[in-house]
């Protein structure tokens, strides 16, 4: 059965299942969402208006048994940044979409009235229904209710109150195998779904399998690939401490943004570290290891219980913990876990919202260190849509504008994540030049700047940072198209068997003959497509800049500023 494009038009309330255009055939994940946005969305359109489109696409290998291949890409023009946007997450949806033969789901147009809708898709039908019961509900209630209406095996993609209120930090949540949530977090894609008045999309389970052109070759390549992942020591550490293992090393490197980016080290780092989190999880009978999708062999997620040994949160990530922890000076992991849970339920990006809280603290809305205050604002303001809640829910830039704060860590209006660019200069290049606003995952130079993966580039030097970021951004765009979790990159950068096995799997899946260079070229072509969209939307190289405070305020302990020139930043695009 050939893959199809599933299309829903919310203006006419009509649906269609179409053949895949020939030039989209070799694409998946981010490569496909960005290609469709570039082809079908007017770059200058209002992101929450009728001309924007919301695209869901499983990766090229999603739905197969390839290890770690269950990432779902969601794309649109971002209401937060005004740029093209792709956010990806695990959960069950990518694999389920691939198995029903959905190469991409495109949602276009806007409904005319106030009616909300839900969508149910299966291999050959798209059902659009009016929704009343779940409007205003949090994501956890939505999952419970939709499973009651359908089955526990259905896939679910949902928005919470933040998406309904079109807050620019709203995310799209994807149900995981335990009926909990993973988030396509960044850039406000939940607001785009909210603008189209779709509360959730459910996917019917199927017994069908993804067709593999050469099953024997695929199996062999997957065996090699899986071994490379499992044997990698970073994979093993991720399974023990989660991504939060980074708190202590980034703090030690003097690059842990603290107190709204005024210091590079946090006194309370041990209290919020991966080591403390691991011990707490074990003591409270949670699970240090947990997979966000079937087939993940790294298992960086976890189940974090409260002090009564009851489930509190999962997918408790370094970025979220840093942002509520060091950046807001909260040294209480339980308060951070509560806030993480609340943000999952409200459906709002933990990075953007927590950095916005840090800016709000500087603006005098609440005190630094007030973890209870963060939870109160989440419950009483953001979830309920008060004026303050909407200001914070529209991100760090929004808070800065409303409260007259000038130290606002954003690029293209998207909050800078957990690595200070003054002390790790490679990641500053990524923040500045990324096609999607500040985002560490676009070109994760931390690997080479700090972790010694893929070689070593001194984080405090100018040398080699642009080239490092460029190479990683190209590779990442390609990986984000395969459906692979980005954490395969740790093995791919240092284990020479890993990438060839990945290319072999793609070839065996589709019966094609790509070589490594083709994969690099795919990454280059995705970046250029995204860049061209942004330029047509009005962005120039003047937008590829960090906020001026990074150049003016030295950060402890290294007492360094951002000092890579604009001309040097602009050489990024020389390829």
């Amino acid at each position, binding site marked *: 059965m050939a893959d199809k494009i599933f299309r829903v038009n919310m203006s006419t309330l009509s649906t269609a299942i179409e053949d895949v255009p020939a030039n989209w055939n070799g694409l998946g994940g981010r490569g496909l969402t960005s290609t469709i946005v570039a082809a079908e969305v007017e770059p200058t359109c209002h992101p929450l208006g009728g001309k924007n489109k919301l695209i869901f696409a499983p990766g090229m290998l999603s739905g197969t048994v390839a290890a770690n291949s269950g990432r779902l890409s969601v794309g649109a023009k971002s209401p937060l940044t005004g740029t093209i946007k792709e956010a990806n997450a695990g959960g069950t949806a990518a694999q389920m979409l691939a198995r029903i033969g959905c190469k991409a789901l495109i949602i276009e147009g806007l409904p005319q009235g106030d009616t909300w809708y839900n969508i149910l898709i299966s291999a050959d039908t798209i059902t659009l229904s009016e929704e009343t019961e779940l409007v205003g509900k949090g994501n956890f209630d939505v999952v419970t209710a939709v499973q009651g209406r359908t089955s526990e095996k259905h896939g679910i993609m949902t928005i919470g109150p933040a998406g309904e209120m079109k807050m620019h930090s709203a995310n799209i949540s994807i149900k995981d195998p335990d009926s909990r949530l993973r988030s396509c977090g960044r850039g406000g894609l939940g607001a785009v779904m909210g603008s189209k008045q779709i509360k959730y999309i459910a996917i019917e389970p199927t017994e069908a399998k993804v067709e593999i052109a050469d099953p024997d070759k695929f199996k062999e390549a997957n065996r090699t690939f899986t071994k490379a992942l499992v044997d990698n*020591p970073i994979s093993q550490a991720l399974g023990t401490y989660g991504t939060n*293992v980074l708190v202590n*090393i980034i703090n030690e490197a003097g690059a842990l943004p603290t107190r709204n980016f005024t210091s590079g080290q946090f006194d309370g780092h041990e209290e919020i570290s991966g080591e403390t989190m691991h011990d707490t999880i074990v003591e409270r009978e949670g699970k240090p290891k947990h997979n966000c999708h079937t087939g993940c062999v790294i298992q960086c997620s976890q189940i974090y219980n409260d002090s009564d040994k009851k489930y509190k949160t999962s997918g408790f990530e370094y970025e979220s913990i840093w942002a509520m922890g060091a950046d807001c000076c909260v040294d209480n992991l339980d308060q951070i876990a509560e806030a993480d849970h609340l943000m999952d339920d409200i459906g709002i990006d933990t990075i953007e919202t927590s950095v916005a809280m840090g800016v709000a603290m500087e603006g005098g809305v609440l005190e630094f260190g007030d973890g209870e205050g963060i939870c109160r604002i989440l419950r009483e303001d953001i979830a309920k849509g008060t004026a303050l809640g909407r200001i914070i829910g529209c991100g760090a830039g929004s808070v800065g504008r409303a409260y007259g704060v000038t130290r606002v860590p954003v690029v293209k209006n998207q909050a800078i994540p957990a690595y200070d660019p003054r002390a790790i200069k490679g990641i500053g290049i990524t923040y500045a030049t990324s096609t999607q606003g500040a985002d560490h995952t676009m070109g994760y130079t931390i690997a080479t700047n700090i972790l010694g993966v893929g070689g070593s580039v001194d984080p405090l030097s100018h040398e080699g940072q642009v080239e490092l970021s460029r190479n990683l951004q190209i590779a990442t765009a390609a990986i984000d198209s395969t459906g692979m979790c980005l954490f395969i990159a740790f093995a791919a950068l240092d284990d020479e068997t890993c990438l060839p096995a990945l290319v072999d799997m793609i070839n065996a899946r589709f019966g094609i003959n790509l070589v490594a260079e083709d994969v690099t070229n795919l990454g280059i072509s995705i970046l250029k497509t995204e860049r061209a969209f942004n330029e047509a939307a009005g962005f120039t190289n003047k937008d590829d800049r960090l906020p001026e405070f990074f150049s003016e305020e030295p950060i402890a302990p290294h007492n360094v500023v951002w000092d890579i020139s604009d001309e040097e930043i602009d050489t990024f695009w020389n390829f």
Partner: protein
Amino acid sequence: MAAEDRISITVKLFAFFRDNRFKKQEQQFPANTTVRDIILFQGINPEEVGVTMINSRQCTLDQIPVQGDQLAIFPIIGGG
């Protein structure tokens, strides 16, 4: 060896290197002791070491810390 030939280093361990060891400890070493020797002194296999920093700056295993330095020793880790 005379006492003045010994230097004091604050050694910090992370992740599973802490198991049955410590988080942070001040230790005495002869002057000219390399980072590698300090790692071996902890009973840690240098091949398991991913990152070392002296006073928050990346260092090599051949580097020689001086009196009062802080040496941080991490296994091979990653996240993001």
